[in-house]
């Protein structure tokens, strides 16, 4: 049976000299769910983008339904095979970031770009007046056909993230694609929403669609897909049946060596209280309470994990501790110092911070690696400065950057390269290394392994546990529940700005934490 898609000897070089794909050949069968996995920078997104037409391959060819089809643009890809009388459907992609217009309704978003115009007369042909009735009806028909639970008239800004993702999928189905590519589809979903998505994808497969998806989550990959292909450093390592493989084997193919999945935590006796947040309340500019009466404790040698659906107060909690936001009520005490009125620099005496967003908060992408590495150290580390702190010693700064490279295994050319020259994982290592080297009693980590691959994640978890063993207090905020439960000694769950649970990790599990995240306090009590 001819594979529906065949990619042969694909090569892709990004200007000026980044080899993203090197002689990759892969085939996809019709009606299968096929996962593509690999570390960050392995090339899986690039491979899918080449297939989808948003990137052009430097070498190689693509066959779609047996016909050559090097799509020049995504419109071509969605239109399908070229020059066919009975053209089979095209190829569509759902990206990781949901790109919809919040002010438009569901049906308006779905038809955007292929709007039906009024058929009769000059209004249709000349002015292109929208046939809103027909558009709405067609979208509703698609919703019913595939059994999605969507209201075509709902405003996209009002519906949940999971529903928005469904709208993205609906957009492709509306255009009658027969191949759907999904990029990290579960990244935006809570644990409870994932099975629903999988059911929908299985239904689509049963209707004859082919589904390709990229994912980091090996457990989900094994649960959903029929076949799994592994890329490593731009090369195809192999394709295996999901039924006969394991997470460990996939990880080994991805990284090239054995990967430890479960960290073994050394029991550590928690010491003094390092972070005490008491009765904290924070209002936003509309005087709405984003945090209400929040109390969190972290002791030395302890990791407290904060779980919660994004938007339930984690952003405010982090920013109040850091000093970007003011609390309307409550106290923050770090290492016995009441920091409520202290500047960020003064707080940095006690706290190191790895922010959520590498590019917007954690570093300057255009600045050199050295310049990024010495932030905050330039004020707190007397070794890096001369003339009582007025002049920077750049040679010592470079040495510091090299030391970071050694200790944290950062893959880089030279420290004077800009930060943007590094892969996401290595950028994160620079930022983590910088903050951990500050050696402050409290370490605030916000999504420390977001976007990192299995190998880097393992290294970062290792470092976090070393900090814990060294007696640091760690507040860890993470959307990755496995990571959170694996690393934390205690779990705090935020829901609508309130702490709805504060329990030792050993006394709870994934399902219960997921329930707290979605529903808040148990009706039956804590």
């Amino acid at each position, binding site marked *: 049976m001819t594979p529906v898609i065949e990619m042969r000897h694909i*090569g*892709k*070089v*990004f*200007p*000026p*000299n*980044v*080899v993203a794909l*090197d*002689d990759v050949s892969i085939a996809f069968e019709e009606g299968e769910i096929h996962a593509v996995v690999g570390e960050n920078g392995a090339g899986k997104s690039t491979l899918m983008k080449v297939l989808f037409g948003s990137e052009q391959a*430097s*070498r190689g060819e693509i066959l779609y339904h047996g016909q050559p089809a090097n799509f020049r643009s995504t419109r071509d890809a969605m239109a399908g095979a070229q020059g066919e009388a009975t053209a089979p459907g095209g190829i569509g992609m759902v990206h990781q970031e949901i790109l919809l217009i919040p002010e438009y309704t569901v049906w308006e978003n779905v038809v955007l770009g292929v709007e039906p115009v009024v058929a009769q007369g000059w209004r249709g042909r000349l002015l292109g007046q929208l046939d809103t009735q027909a558009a709405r009806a067609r979208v509703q028909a698609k919703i019913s056909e595939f059994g999605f639970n969507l209201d075509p008239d709902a405003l996209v800004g009002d519906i949940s993230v999971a529903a928005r993702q469904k709208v993205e999928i609906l957009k492709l189905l509306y255009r009658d694609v027969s191949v759907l590519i999904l990029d990290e589809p579960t990244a935006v979903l809570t644990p409870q929403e994932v099975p629903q998505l999988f059911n929908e994808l299985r239904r689509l497969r049963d209707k004859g669609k082919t589904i390709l998806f990229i994912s980091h989550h090996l457990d989900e990959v094994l649960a959903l897909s029929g076949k799994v292909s592994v890329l490593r*450093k*731009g090369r195809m390592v192999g394709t295996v049946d999901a039924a006969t493989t394991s997470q460990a084997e996939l990880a080994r193919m991805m990284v*090239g060596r054995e990967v430890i999945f479960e960290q073994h935590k050394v029991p550590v006796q928690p010491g003094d209280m390092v972070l005490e947040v008491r009765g904290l309340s924070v209002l936003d500019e509309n005087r709405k309470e984003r945090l209400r009466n929040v109390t969190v404790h972290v002791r030395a040698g302890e990791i407290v994990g904060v779980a919660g659906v994004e938007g339930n107060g984690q952003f405010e909690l982090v920013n109040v501790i*850091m000093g*970007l936001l003011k609390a309307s009520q409550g106290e923050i005490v770090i290492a016995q110092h009441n920091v409520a009125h202290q*500047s*960020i*620099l003064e707080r*940095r005496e006690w706290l190191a*911070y790895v*922010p959520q967003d590498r590019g*917007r*908060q*954690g*570093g*300057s*992408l*255009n*600045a050199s690696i050295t*310049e990024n590495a*010495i*932030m*905050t150290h*330039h*004020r*707190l580390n007397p070794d890096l*400065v001369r003339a009582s*702190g*007025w*002049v*920077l010693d*750049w040679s010592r700064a470079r040495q510091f950057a090299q030391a970071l490279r050694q200790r944290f*295994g950062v*893959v880089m050319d030279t420290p004077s390269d800009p930060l943007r020259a590094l892969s996401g994982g290595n950028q994160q290592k620079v930022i983590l290394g910088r903050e951990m080297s500050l050696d402050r009693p409290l370490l605030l980590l916000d999504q420390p392994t977001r976007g990192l691959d299995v*190998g*880097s994640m393992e290294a970062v978890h290792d470092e976090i546990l070393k900090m814990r063993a060294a007696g640091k207090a760690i507040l860890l905020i993470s959307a990755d529940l496995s990571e959170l439960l694996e690393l934390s000694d205690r779990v705090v769950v935020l829901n609508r700005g309130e702490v709805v649970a504060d329990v030792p990790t050993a006394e709870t599990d994934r399902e219960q934490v997921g329930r707290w995240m979605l529903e808040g306090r148990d009706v039956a009590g804590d």
Partner: protein
Amino acid sequence: MRQKILSSLIGVVIALGLGAIIMAIQGYNPLETYGALLDFSALNSNAFPTTLKNAVPLILTGLSASIAFASGPVNLGQPGQLVIGAMFATVAGLALDLPPVIQVPVLLVMAMLGGAAWAGIAALLRRAFNMSEFIVTLMLNSIADLLTAYLIAGPLADRNAGSPTSAPIAASGFLGTLGPINISVLIVAVTFVIVWFVFTRTTAGYEWRMAGQNELFARLGGCAVNRNFITVMLLTGALAGLAGGLVVMAGPHRFLRGLGANYAWDGIMIAVVANNGLLGTVLYGLFFAMLQTGALGTELITNVPGEFTQVLQAIIVLVVVAGRVYLARLLDQLSARRLGQRSDIRRQISDA
């Protein structure tokens, strides 16, 4: 770095080529014209020192703009800061007559104070009321122009002169030459070294640059971003003010009408063309000074109107700035295509 120089050179060459075409269409001889331009700006014995002297306000206002833009504050008030600085130097030069070794530094400091104070108004309004310094500095330019025009037509007017101008400053404030080179040029050279050192080698300069690239990152890292904002506004205002003082002291020795001319606007433009790089600003400043000084030559030798160099300046700005991004992308793509064609691609990234 090499790519930056290459793209600048290509841009300038293309611009000169376009200028040659324009001249040829009009019936002038491009080669002879460029030759005359070069002659009158660099080759003649008197030419290069004149070019250097003309470059003084361009370089200083250019540095003022470059440092401000690269550090966050959008200081577009160099024109106003320049004339206020010139006015402060003029008033001090009229009121004092100390020995030159004291008079000159005092006048220079007054010029810098004037520029700093003028920029400080915008900084204050920003800190107190969150008013955009972009707008405020621009508006202050007009106020400065009108204020100084009033002063030289009224309270400070020289009754003996035929047009609005102040009286000449005390002779002890005149800047003469050291050999062929005007002292103002040496002052600029020293200023550049100091500014370069502060911007690239000090903790403060590091904080400014980081805040200019990513303010949130600098803030989270503990930089005193708000305080640095004010410092940078004051410092860049002082640089523009210094330019004004030097123009008076090395030039007409009085504040006459039209003193500021287009220097500061050209300076801002130079900063943009140089993409806020310090050395680039100096080099472009020199280059533009050459064009402006050489304009006399084009008029005398080939009858090309002096305004033509302004046309040339404009073309250079357009080509270099607009072409910068495309050129960089083009060079990258060529390099990528070459690498992609090879059938034995090997990645240079070592195993993590």
